[in-house]
């Protein structure tokens, strides 16, 4: 299982990468592995705002649909629309393919999330 240093992680297996006042959010390698072949993704609307823990996207594997939660309150400013035609990229490169870019979040809220080491320990505890 791949885990990238320097990112924030949620217990629902999303990652957030911070660049300046923007954040990139995606799903982790653990998440894509657990879901299996991903065949469809429902992206949020650009300019849509969400509270922390809101369901903001849906990722569907062959067998099931999984709600994806925004771990922190934020506004979506861009989506990775490439995933609409190639959802399988989330299986191939989960840390390269973000789902959305967000703005307008409180930096304090990030501190409620895990760093890479804590997330790795968390995943191991689920085995």
């Amino acid at each position, binding site marked *: 299982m791949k885990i990238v240093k320097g990112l924030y992680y949620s217990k629902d297996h999303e990652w957030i990468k911070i660049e300046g006042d923007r954040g990139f959010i995606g799903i982790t390698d653990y998440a894509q592995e657990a879901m*299996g072949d991903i*065949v469809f993704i429902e992206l949020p609307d650009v300019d849509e705002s969400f509270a922390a823990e809101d369901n903001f996207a849906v990722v569907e594997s062959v067998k099931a*649909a999984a709600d994806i939660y925004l771990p922190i309150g934020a506004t979506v400013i861009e989506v990775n629309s490439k995933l609409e035609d190639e959802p399988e990229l989330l299986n191939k490169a989960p840390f390269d393919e973000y789902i959305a870019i967000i703005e307008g979040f409180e930096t304090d809220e990030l501190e409620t999330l895990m760093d890479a080491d804590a997330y790795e320990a968390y995943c191991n505890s689920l085995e």
Partner: protein
Amino acid sequence: MGKRTCLYDMHVQYKAKIVDFAGFDMPIQYEGIMDEHAATRNAIGLFDVSHMGKFVLKGEDAKICINHMVTNDLTTLENGQAMYAPMCYEDGGTVDDILVYQHEPDDLLLVVNAGNKDKDYKWIESHLLPGVDLKDITDELCQLAVQGPKSVEFIMTLTDALLDTVKYYHFMDQVVLADVPMLISRTGYTGEDGFELYFDKKYAQTIWTLLLDKGASYGIKPCGLGARDTLRFEAGMPLYGNELSETINPLEAGLGYFVKLNGDDFIGKSSLEQYKNQPKRKLVGFELMEKGIARHGTDVLSSEGDVIGTVTTGYISPTLGKSIGLALIPYAYDKDSMVVQIRKNRIEAKIINKRFLKQ
């Protein structure tokens, strides 16, 4: 922890993801549903289906006895032949859909859905004729499905039996394959040619390993229940719990071919005759006109927006790449398209032939 088939250790060894299915810890997939699905369509898929319920029905009137409990006409069944048959309640609702194998008219093998096994046993037991004996042999046997266009050629390299002469829905008993005696039938649940193998479970691991080793050059892959479901769905085959249930009769499910109302009496016959004269629902195939997946339980709406039915199974078809499904809707609905409600989105669903692979 659930029940385990004789191949559970093999599933773990082959890195399966294990899920609960009908009380069994079963492999949902090994490497991935898409690859397993493709292997079965293009080469060979190997499935552990030992969880399926298996009953022996013996006695002079065994055939008469079970023929009275199923909607198909077993009187035409010959020795060495198998027949698919829905089994109904008095009201026409479906108890289960089963396979009946005939060794002799007084010696039958019934193969039933794992999730219905206990219910079926009680149902059949309560309708037994005097002198007919029912025995559950599920735990004694390993059952494998070897499915795909290269199955026949491959399996024939492992035995002297002339399996290519076995016709669809026929079987050969006491076939010796790798020194193991087994019953091999030309049956399956994938829409592909292939066999199902029934043998003593003590040989389970040997045969499983042998098939995967010797089949490697044919492109064989172990396949889980995930691919089993996408394969049967694409082939237009019903799944009990989706297309059939205690409240969905076989005529509604489009299985009229297996409901022989002209033959002998059977449980549920008069209800089904009545239903045939006044049908209320029908199972249709559909294709979504936009992206999305209409899964089991999704509401179906008329083009005017009224809820008229429900999706019984829906997937992005691995073979066709389209988002398709089966839905139970009013018999009288005669438009070319309907609407499915997926979360907040309403998506047009064009009605298409439910034999998805044939169009």
